[in-house]
């Protein structure tokens, strides 16, 4: 178990960093990467000033994380929004219709398979799995920052509470029902965006409606803003409530949205076991002390399941391991020495 005085290499005479210092440093580096990436992909400042959104060619490209394309600063497209937009084009009532422009009868597939968006998510997933969640997602960063707000210990919820394990399956249900099945059957509603996504409300709705209300908007004929609070209706209040619950829970526990709700995290999670970038345990070094499991805020037992679906590759466990038994990267995983039991097939 780590203490403040644990050192990385006790036989080394040079000044040693404590495990706490290494963990702090790892966290600072991660925070800097998250902030830099989020600022870079949301740097259309004009949008924030005028209450409008970026309309340039970069919007054809998806961003890796949950980043609403209706955020005034967003330069790219949200993969989950884009996926629903393509599936929404499906028309399950007819496969043949007359093309207005040409007058010819055209046959279109009944259901669209979103090749471009799924290919994009697959590419990122196959390269780095849920590494994206820890480093490249603005909504992950927001939850990380909210969790830094101090709260009395008894109000903090640690992973592993009753029902935690079962609730983790919810994100897969949301992915199938709200992102795939309903948008495919009941076009043109992007169900997840419309009824759940707190990221869209926080990054898109609130800034756009506020700037539009304060500085004037097109609807009222008073400015350039594209919407305002005057347009708020029942779905606005529903989504605001979901956002409020997400914010409160994020202060109380680590990344509730990522653990239980996020359909994008759910997709990336499947790639953790097969992605090029992976975690592994050097079994010649691991003593099964459990220090890695203790620090993991996602509730993963790193020394037992290094490629768990829930691991976001934040690196906290790696920094906390007193024996440097956790390896991460693209290299081949070292095969442990064959034990006597294995040798004789016991």
């Amino acid at each position, binding site marked *: 178990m780590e203490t403040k005085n644990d050192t990385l290499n006790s036989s080394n005479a040079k000044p040693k960093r404590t495990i706490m210092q290494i963990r702090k440093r790892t966290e600072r580096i991660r925070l800097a990467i998250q902030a830099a990436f989020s600022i870079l992909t949301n740097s259309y400042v004009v949008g924030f000033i005028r209450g409008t959104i970026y309309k340039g060619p970069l919007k054809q490209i998806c961003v890796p994380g949950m980043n609403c394309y209706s955020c005034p600063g967003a330069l790219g497209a949200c993969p989950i929004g884009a996926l629903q937009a393509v599936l929404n084009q499906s028309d399950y009532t007819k496969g043949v219709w007359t093309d207005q422009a040409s007058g010819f009868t055209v046959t279109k597939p009944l259901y669209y398979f979103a090749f471009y968006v799924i290919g994009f998510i697959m590419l990122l997933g196959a390269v780095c799995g849920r590494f994206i969640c820890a480093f490249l997602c603005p909504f992950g960063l927001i939850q990380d920052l909210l969790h830094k707000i101090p709260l009395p210990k008894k109000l903090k919820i640690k992973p592993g509470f009753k029902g935690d394990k079962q609730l983790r399956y919810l994100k897969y249900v949301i992915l199938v029902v709200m992102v795939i099945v309903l948008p495919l059957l009941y076009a043109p*509603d992007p169900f997840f965006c419309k009824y759940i996504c707190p990221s869209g409300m926080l990054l898109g709705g609130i800034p756009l409606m506020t700037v539009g209300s304060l500085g004037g908007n097109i609807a009222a004929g008073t400015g350039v803003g594209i919407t305002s609070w005057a347009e708020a209706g029942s779905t606005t209040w529903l989504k605001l409530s979901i956002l409020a619950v997400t914010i409160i829970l994020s202060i109380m526990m680590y990344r509730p949205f990522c653990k239980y709700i996020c359909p994008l995290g759910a997709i990336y999670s499947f790639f953790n076991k097969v992605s090029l970038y992976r975690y592994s345990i050097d079994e010649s070094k691991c003593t099964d002390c459990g220090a890695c499991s203790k620090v993991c805020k996602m509730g993963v037992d790193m020394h037992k399941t290094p490629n768990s679906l829930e691991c976001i590759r934040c690196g906290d466990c790696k920094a906390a391991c007193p024996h440097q038994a956790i390896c991460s990267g693209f290299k081949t995983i070292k095969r442990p020495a064959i034990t006597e039991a294995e040798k004789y097939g016991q």
Partner: protein
Amino acid sequence: MKKNSKTNSTYNHILDGKFRFVLPILLIVFAIGFIAYGIHDGEITAVFNKAINLCRECVGIG
């Protein structure tokens, strides 16, 4: 990749051994193919049109 109770190992002979690189590379090749087909099929236009027009559902007014 749970620890195998018999050998107490997290090493998976298929995913970490033989297929360590085969599976992700296959997935990457498929992914690139999907992206290329999606662009060719005009799917990127659907994404672009959605992304440059205010998504009313996203911002809670749709």
